[in-house]
């Protein structure tokens, strides 16, 4: 009951924040780029066939590799920044509420926003295919619409990103500096680009999981989804326990 109250408060605080707009804007940018590419090179894609899988993979790949880590960095930093900016912690944590609920409620909100962004990516992908079918008669995206393919890959991407979310959530609440939080996310993303080339080390670095899971480096590594989900659960609990013991600045 207390957790629900804290969670509702966290959602209430999102009003008029950039964090909500980013959920729609970031997927839109990626799908728009893919849409323009298909639109401009319609003949090439028409001859290639397998239009829905190509569009779905391109959107998911570009989103998963380029935008998703940045999106997680931005969302966790923005949500943590709501409290850090005016040092809200000292008032929130002087209430008769276990501090762990604040940690977990904020994490659930970030996870919700990442899930929403994944749903937006999938929906826009299908929308882009349908629009291309109308605008470019050469690009006949066939029926039936492959909801399972598009939303399935979106769900897999989501699961593969859980551990990144949990890590970044801890970092952004642990250090009040917005710059540090963003810097950490950028560095981790760049490191992910390099490490994903290495079959030996890539499975040890969570920022490579979206790429490995999509099968962009060899066969899809489905087992990493379990590692990501279990790792996120362990880190969430450990983070919450650490948070309740922390001195408030």
């Amino acid at each position: 009951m207390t957790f629900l109250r804290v969670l509702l408060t966290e959602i209430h605080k999102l009003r008029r924040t950039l964090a909500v707009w980013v959920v729609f804007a970031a997927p839109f940018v990626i799908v728009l780029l893919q849409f323009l590419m298909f639109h401009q090179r319609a003949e090439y894609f028409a001859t290639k066939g397998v239009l829905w899988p190509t569009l779905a993979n391109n959107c998911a790949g570009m989103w998963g590799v380029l935008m998703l880590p940045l999106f997680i960095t931005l969302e966790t930093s923005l949500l943590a920044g709501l409290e850090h900016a005016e040092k809200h912690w000292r008032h929130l944590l002087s209430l008769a509420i276990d501090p762990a609920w604040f940690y977990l409620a904020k994490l659930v909100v970030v996870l919700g926003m990442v899930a929403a962004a994944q749903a937006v990516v999938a929906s826009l992908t299908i929308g882009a295919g349908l629009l291309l079918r109308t605008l470019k008669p050469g690009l006949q995206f066939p029926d039936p619409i492959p909801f399972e393919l598009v939303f399935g890959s979106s769900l897999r991407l989501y699961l593969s990103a859980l551990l990144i979310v949990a890590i970044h959530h801890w970092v952004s609440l642990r250090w009040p500096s917005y710059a540090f939080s963003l810097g950490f996310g950028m560095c981790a993303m760049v490191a992910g680009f390099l490490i994903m080339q290495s079959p030996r080390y890539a499975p040890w670095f969570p920022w490579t999981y979206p790429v490995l899971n999509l099968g962009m480096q060899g066969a899809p590594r489905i087992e990493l989804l379990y590692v990501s989900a279990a790792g996120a659960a362990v880190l969430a609990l450990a983070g919450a326990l650490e948070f309740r013991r922390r001195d408030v600045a």
Partner: protein
Amino acid sequence: MLLIETEHLKRRFGRVEAVRDVTLRVPAGAVYAFLGPNGAGKTTTIRILLGLSRADGGAVNLFGAPFARKCLARVGALVEGPTLYPHLTGSENMQVRARLTGASSREIARALAIVRLERDAGRLVRGYSLGMRQRLALAQALLRSPQLLVLDEPTNGLDPAGISEIRELIRGLPTGQGITVFLSSHLLNEVEQVATHLGIVAAGRSRFEGTFDDLRARRGETITIGVDRPAEAERLLRDNGFTVHPAVDRRLSVIAAGREAAARLNALLVAAGFSVHHLSLERPSLEQAFFELTEAA
């Protein structure tokens, strides 16, 4: 009943001993001023009282029982200035706090009325003046009618009109709302008009606790004596156990308590053949007493 009771609190940050030995006793119904210069350990003590920081030693009792987070349901707090969400309106900020504390919309309206912000509650907080922010933060602290209100430097950064407004609000809380107020400040004259009790801390240690009259009485009064041979008179008084400040303009200052002491002094000097041409009794200002206590640390 004591709402706050601490025993020999200690808190260290690395090599810095922020709180060395702070003992407090805050009775119900008081406006208790927790005074000390900047860096004396006031905020750290308040953080410990509110569960934001752990004590390395000593004990904290709230409402007569050892500190437990559930006790904080009966406490309202404003620590180191207002913390509000500028992208939300005044009402929305109140709703955030109300959801967390389980307060009703009627309680929100009541708290806003106490701080006289009903008319501006629909505006975004980013457009509020510092005084309005402070009042809104106070309204949040007053939600659910706490028994104890902890305010850390509540007038910091306010202009004289804002200070006067907050002072009036605080003054009315014990009688009007039945709320005990624990108020920290580094300015004695700021709390003198509202507080009933006083705790002074310096360099992390409690230096004094009591009422304003206790503070005056503790320090004693100053008896100024004009006499013909001040150096000899000073010696005589010292020999008789008085605390004497050296003569200025042929006048001696003696720290002693009460009229009886003044009469005894006079009799002693006259009996020894001195000519006493001036004798006056002066009560020390609170400021003098405060500075003596804090500077001694």
